[in-house]
């Protein structure tokens, strides 16, 4: 499989190690990535809020670039995924809008046709590759307890995105399980991380994060697993800000899913990913094989009377 890779501004320039982890793992599943001259998706809370027409035209330009190469787009950020998917939905449903956008793209030698699909790494791994194939490649399981946060913009609007069940998301939990992790349920699983209002009202934004973190901390996970660079930054750096504002004491490590996948595949260079983390975690450095691990989990299950 070959994709036009859309890391998005936030991942590319603020979370390059997460991008690195994606580029490290996908070749192991026969996926090839191509880089194109994309702009920002663009982000709904800024550009779309200012001008809906500008948003849809820039998104159409991005999609048209991939279409010109005959490629589907692989997104890595929930925000980019939603933005491009909503724009595509609108353009495919509304021929007038599509024609208007194409009038402008013509000057750039581009045309939006609607031929490329938008796929997030989450969907690539769960829907295309599948957890059986992933777990068959795991050589170094990661036996930690985690909570997952799929992210607002991968879940909603459910009528357009279809990534997972918007009220009861389970796929990221299953992906974690396939690497040997134990996913925990928590109260506010589908709640926003607060990033969406950070630019407008930062105290409100961190108060939302405080609520979310409180719900997470209750189940005492070793780490939070996300599929979006913006959620990553909000959880990881935001905890400290929330602690400062509200006197809380959150200190939970955060991972972008493919970092853990790279570790589980025992790929070289994963230490350069972990070196960039601000909340550190001691991952079991064991060389234990999968078989040993399996027996371990079996042993720990209490036999029913």
């Amino acid at each position: 499989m070959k994709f036009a890779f859309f890391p998005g501004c936030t991942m590319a320039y603020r979370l390059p190690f997460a991008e690195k982890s994606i580029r490290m793992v996908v070749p192991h599943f026969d996926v090839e990535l191509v880089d194109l001259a994309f702009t920002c998706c663009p982000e709904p809370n800024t550009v779309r809020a200012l001008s809906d027409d500008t948003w849809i035209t820039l998104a159409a330009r991005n999609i048209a670039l991939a279409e010109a190469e005959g490629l589907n787009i692989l997104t890595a950020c929930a925000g980019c995924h939603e933005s491009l998917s909503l724009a595509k939905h609108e353009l495919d449903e509304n021929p007038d809008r599509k024609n208007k956008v194409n009038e402008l793209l013509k000057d750039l030698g581009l045309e939006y046709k609607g031929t490329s699909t938008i796929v997030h790494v989450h969907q690539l791994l769960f829907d295309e590759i599948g957890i059986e194939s992933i777990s068959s490649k795991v050589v170094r399981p990661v036996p930690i307890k985690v909570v997952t946060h799929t992210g607002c913009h991968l879940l909603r609007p459910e009528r357009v995105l279809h990534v997972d069940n918007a009220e009861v998301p389970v796929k990221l939990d299953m992906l974690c399980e396939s690497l040997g992790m134990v996913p925990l349920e928590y109260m506010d699983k589908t709640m926003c991380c607060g990033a969406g209002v950070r630019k407008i009202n930062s105290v409100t934004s961190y108060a939302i994060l405080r609520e979310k973190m409180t719900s997470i901390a209750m189940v005492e996970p070793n780490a939070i697993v996300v599929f979006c660079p913006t959620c990553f930054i909000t959880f990881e750096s935001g905890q400290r800000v929330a602690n400062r504002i509200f006197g809380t004491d959150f200190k939970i490590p955060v991972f972008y899913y493919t970092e853990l996948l790279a570790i589980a595949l025992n790929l070289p260079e994963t230490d350069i990913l972990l070196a960039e983390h601000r909340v550190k975690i001691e991952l079991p450095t064991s060389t234990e094989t999968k078989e040993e691990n399996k027996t371990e989990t079996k042993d720990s299950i209490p036999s029913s009377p």
Partner: protein
Amino acid sequence: MSDMSEDLQTNRLKELKETALPCFQCGVCSSSCPVFRVSPELNPRVSVDSIISRGKVPSEGNEWLCAYCLMCDQRCPMGVSLAEILMVIKNISAKEGQAPPDVIESAESLMADGCQSPISSRSEKQREDMGLPKLPRADPEDVKMLFRATGAAEVLELNRSTSGEASE
């Protein structure tokens, strides 16, 4: 503003009211809204009521507090999407020069750099050190052309001058 764009604005507001009309004030949106949970000045149920009865949000600038998390959109039993309604209201408010400064700043950066936050040489270096490819960039002139042709350049210009007035 020309009469034509004012008409357009009035029409859009009328359309918005219509999409909000099915609301029966159950409050599911409010109880699902993460912003309302911590900042009661954005009350989704009251906002929908106010849009239906007065054609605007309860108090000026409220629309910008919405995180666009789409929880209200997901859960409304009547299919009302306050998130989308507020997005349209943000567009109208931006056209009136009322966009928050940080939103303007991000959009300016996108127009200049093709990216929401300015790309620093430090982050370019960090990519290089990690063995990540240099990403191809869009021609800035193309991006500017699209900003101008679709109205965002004008909205930015307008908000620049109003925020300039405010700071004087």
